[in-house]
């Protein structure tokens, strides 16, 4: 029999219930046994959380690698894994394997590839993959170029009520492009695509979701125009949600100056007006999910001329601190920001975690919301390819608990 744990003296924030008050959390038998202000159980191990926030462990809704060390340091207890693996997760057996690989430290919830080999042509066995543990379907790093294939995919997925996660960039317009068309791309001589290539893909996929009744999640919507389309579609009842990663509201196209390949992302960084529109859309709920997009890359992938470098950034260890900037600017409450990384992804993918309530899995994290630190890619537990290197931030994870086990102490 494992001793119960009592976490005392902290501020408990549970976005799912709206609870936000000083309280004690008791963990027993790997589940949350109680939240309140009674005396701690006599046999309990006491964890002092004075000055800290006690919140559900984060669910990172879209990573390219289940990097346990980086996740724990970032307060992440569950990840939704993109199908862009080697080989792609386009087969129920591969999905089943991926689902097991993180346990017990970080639970991995795989998304099945929408098409075989992620090539955008033939539908993968998404029904069987669901039985093997897939929590959704994803088109991967790229969208599906063919409207006909996308139509069939959404139509077929609707029978299983599986959410379809897409990447919104018009394939033909963005072919070969590594930057957003604009001043910086022109100056640096980088192959670029217009920002409206996103709106074209968003419009198409929303229309197809509307026609088929499928659930659509656009993993990153990064432009004002794309966000307006999502906002309007949601208002008329289309089952569409939008996600984002911190880079797209904290960094603009200016970050690529000097050919900084760590700022080579997909979709590419946008103009400042779009960057601000993203922050507004998170605050007004148009963007429901913040994810890290965690995509570790080696020096060999990144120390290349900008256009030849692989896109992607390491994000798991900075997800919380960067997201808390929305609280620090006064744009959102702490509960609302945490919701985008807990309750919202849990509901989207039908996961058990993301809540702090009696009977819920004991996945939680303790963080100091005011602790200042400086992002240092070289000091990361996982890969260090962050475009935020050197940025001062506030808010640091002090402890991560997964299934009642303390897996990280800051």
């Amino acid at each position, binding site marked *: 029999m494992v001793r119960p744990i009592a976490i005392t003296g902290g501020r408990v924030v549970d976005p799912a219930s709206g609870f936000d008050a000083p309280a004690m959390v008791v963990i027993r038998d790997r589940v949350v046994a109680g939240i309140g202000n009674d005396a701690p159980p006599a046999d309990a191990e006491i964890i002092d959380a004075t000055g800290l926030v006690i919140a559900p462990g984060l669910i990172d809704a879209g990573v390219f690698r289940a990097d346990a060390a980086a996740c724990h340091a970032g307060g992440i207890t569950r990840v939704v894994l993109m199908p862009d693996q080697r080989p792609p997760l386009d087969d129920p057996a591969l999905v089943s394997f991926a689902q097991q690989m993180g346990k017990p430290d970080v639970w991995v919830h795989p998304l099945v590839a929408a098409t075989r080999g992620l090539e955008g042509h033939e539908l993968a066995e998404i029904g069987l993959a669901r039985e093997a543990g897939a929590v959704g379907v994803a088109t991967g790093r790229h969208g599906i170029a063919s409207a006909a294939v996308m139509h069939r995919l959404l139509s077929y997925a609707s029978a299983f009520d599986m959410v379809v996660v897409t990447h919104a960039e018009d394939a033909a317009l963005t072919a070969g492009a590594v930057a957003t*068309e604009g001043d910086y791309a*022109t100056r640096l*001589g980088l192959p670029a695509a*217009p920002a409206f290539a996103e709106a074209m893909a968003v419009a198409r996929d929303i229309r197809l979701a509307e026609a088929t009744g499928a659930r659509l999640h656009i993993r990153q919507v990064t432009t004002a125009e794309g966000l307006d389309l999502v906002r309007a579609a949601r208002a008329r009842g289309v089952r569409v949600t939008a996600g984002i990663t911190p880079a797209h509201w904290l960094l603009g196209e200016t970050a690529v100056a000097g050919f900084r390949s760590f700022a080579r992302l997909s979709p590419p960084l946008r103009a400042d007006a779009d960057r601000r529109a993203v922050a507004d859309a998170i605050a007004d709920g148009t963007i429901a999910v913040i994810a890290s997009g965690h995509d570790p890359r080696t020096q060999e992938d990144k120390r290349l*001329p900008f256009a030849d470098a692989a896109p992607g950034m390491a994000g798991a260890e900075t997800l919380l601190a960067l997201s808390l900037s929305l609280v620090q600017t006064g744009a959102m409450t702490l509960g609302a920001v945490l919701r985008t990384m807990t309750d919202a992804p849990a509901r989207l993918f039908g996961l058990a975690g993301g809540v702090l309530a009696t009977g819920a899995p004991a996945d939680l994290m303790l963080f100091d919301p005011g602790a200042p630190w400086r992002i240092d890619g070289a000091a990361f537990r996982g890969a260090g390819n962050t475009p935020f290197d050197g940025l001062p931030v506030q808010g640091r994870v002090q402890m991560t608990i997964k299934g009642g086990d303390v897996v990280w102490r800051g």
Partner: protein
Amino acid sequence: MDRSPHPAIAAGAHPFPHSHLLGIAGLQAWEMLFLLDEAERWVGVNRSRQKHGEQLAGLTQINAFFENSTRTLLSFEIAGKRLGADVVNLGASGSSMKKGETLLDTASTLNAMHPDMLVIRHGSSGAVQLIAEKVDCPVLNAGDGRHEHPTQALLDALTIRRRKGRIEGLTVAICGDILHSRVARSNFQLLTALGARIRAVAPPTLLPPDVGHLGAESFTDMDKGLAGADVVMMLRLQTERMDGAYVPSTREYFRFYGLTEARLSHAASDVLVMHPGPMNRGVEIDGAIADDIARSAVTEQVEMGVAVRMACLDVLTRTRRGAW
């Protein structure tokens, strides 16, 4: 031509406080003028019978061209040899990059041979800067992707200044494939910094949308773009960009954007015609105009190219030679 130093240099500014020449961006106007004045000296030397100097004697210059080039490579080789450097050329076909070596490994290999000067051309924008961060010697960008080709812009400016006596106040029309051109990007920045008015003339498919931010006014009607121009600079249109990709055909391009006698009549009567070469006669420029020595500066550009490169090699190696 005797020129007094720029007021900034007279006031004590270092004439060229840079380790590398990676682009025109980042240079002050007086630094550009300093390089032009230095190049002016070499024009005379190059026309004399005794062309050999000793400034770079004992130094090793590597010309690493990861993208094919004949003219620019030859120009850099001659420039280095006339200054007395030991010049070694590395072509794309001779490099280990073909064998899968990364760019930075190649850079480390070159660096280990202790060159005193690296001249680099590469097909990717930013590649030369990346190498410059990794090596211990001055690096000169001989063209990187669509980004910059600083010595081409300098030789163009030198040619214009010698023919027109000035750059300030001139109207320069740069015509053709601006989207893919590093020559255009470097020239926009250099010529606007020196006070010229720049026009970008091209079909919309070959015109970057934000060319205005580089100081150029854009035109899709060539007659209007050439109206009153003092200098017309034609750019090469690569054949793979024709045939329906960016323009429908060679003949349609020549019909609307080729430099013909009729079109050139809209420019100033003493217009100077330039082309960075190699020319596609009958595609972007009428052969007769290219050959008209009164108006065409094409061969002079090649001559100025050697002088400009000698000046850049000399200036960039002065710190290690203790020659400032």
